[in-house]
């Protein structure tokens, strides 16, 4: 059952990369769902499965760019391990702490991705893509946490409309 959940997450990454990513992008800011998912899984799961999940998530996310496949897989695995390391040593019970971890993790991932890609205009992309993408992804994570903690439900959303 645990493996099925991880396969579902990987399919979710595939769905995001093929369909959702372009549809939900705002200018240069895109939701970094692979990194977000790895960080969220790292918050709730053990170190070993999270490391492997990070590695596989990196493979799936970078399947479209074979030349950087290894770098992305390694980057995601390191991100997962680092998130587990932070989770073990810091108190991440509060929502703000979790969001801060997601924001920092996604931003670092975006920055390293820019370095791996060797993109021109690094400083500009840092502001227009890496930071805005991290904030955008954190908003998505915030909605996830609100749903998970029951602060936001389908009934509440329906009552607004």
């Amino acid at each position: 059952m645990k493996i099925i959940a991880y396969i579902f997450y990987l399919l979710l990454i595939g769905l995001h990369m093929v369909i959702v990513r372009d549809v939900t992008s705002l200018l240069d800011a895109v939701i970094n769902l692979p990194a977000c998912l790895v960080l969220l899984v790292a918050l709730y799961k053990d170190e070993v499965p999270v490391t492997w999940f990070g590695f596989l998530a990196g493979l799936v996310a970078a399947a479209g760019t074979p030349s950087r496949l290894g770098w992305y897989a390694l980057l995601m695995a390191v991100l997962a391990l680092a998130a587990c390391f932070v989770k073990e040593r810091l108190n991440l019970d509060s929502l703000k702490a979790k969001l801060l971890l997601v924001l920092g993790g996604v931003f670092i991932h975006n920055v390293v991705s820019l370095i791996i890609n060797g993109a021109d205009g690094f400083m500009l992309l840092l502001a227009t893509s890496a930071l805005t993408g991290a904030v955008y992804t954190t908003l998505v994570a915030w909605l996830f946490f609100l749903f998970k903690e029951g602060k936001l439900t389908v009934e509440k959303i329906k009552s607004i409309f």
Partner: protein
Amino acid sequence: MRWISNLFSRYWRNVHFISVFLLSLILILGGGRVTSLVSGAATAVFYTPFAEVKNTVVALSMVNTENRRLQLALVEATAKVVQLEEMEGENARLRAILGFTPPELYTLLPAEVISVSGDHVSLAAVINRGSSDSVAVDQPLINEQGLIGRVVSVAPNSATVQLLTDPTARVAVRVADSREMGIAKYQIGTGMILDNFPIQGSIKEGDLIISSGLGGIYPPGLVVGTVLSVERPEEEPFCRIRLQPAANFNSLEELFILMVAEP
């Protein structure tokens, strides 16, 4: 063995991370063949199903757009076909009119029917010619098929025509072959009849009935209709003759007013 097991569990996570690191290193240094293989497998499993869904949705969207465009084009084409059919009919009518010559001493003034009145049978029509076109009361109207009626009232730019289908209308007629005379009129329910035709008169089905010119309104020689049936009842002085009007009073469009030609 226990020592090895303890050591293994102690460094368990390190073993996993080292494995992941080594695999990543293989992918980084392995060259295009390895990465292509891995990325191909990942794409086939995690991308292709969604890509197919996406392509299907895009194709459906395009088909939908194309369908709407074609529906619009179909409506436009249908409207054009109706318009062309209308023009084709008008063209045929006008061609028929081209070969039409007025009776001697008369000229033709073309007119168009604006409206037709009457419940089940057309009794009167309004045309787009009036006193400003020198139209006057009692002027006869014809079309390429035959006699239509006469003008009964005139306004500056329009005139009302009493059609032969009005039961109060009468036309002095004769049989084209035998030259025997009678009165053509219209009866509600029966249709056009030839009245006052003596029982010993010479008439048969299919005979052509034309105006005799004796009434003073219609000039002689205008086609009124053809004989549909002839009955010769005993003990009655006149035949019962039904006529088929030459003109189709249900589709009046272009008419001609017979104007007396100026010398």
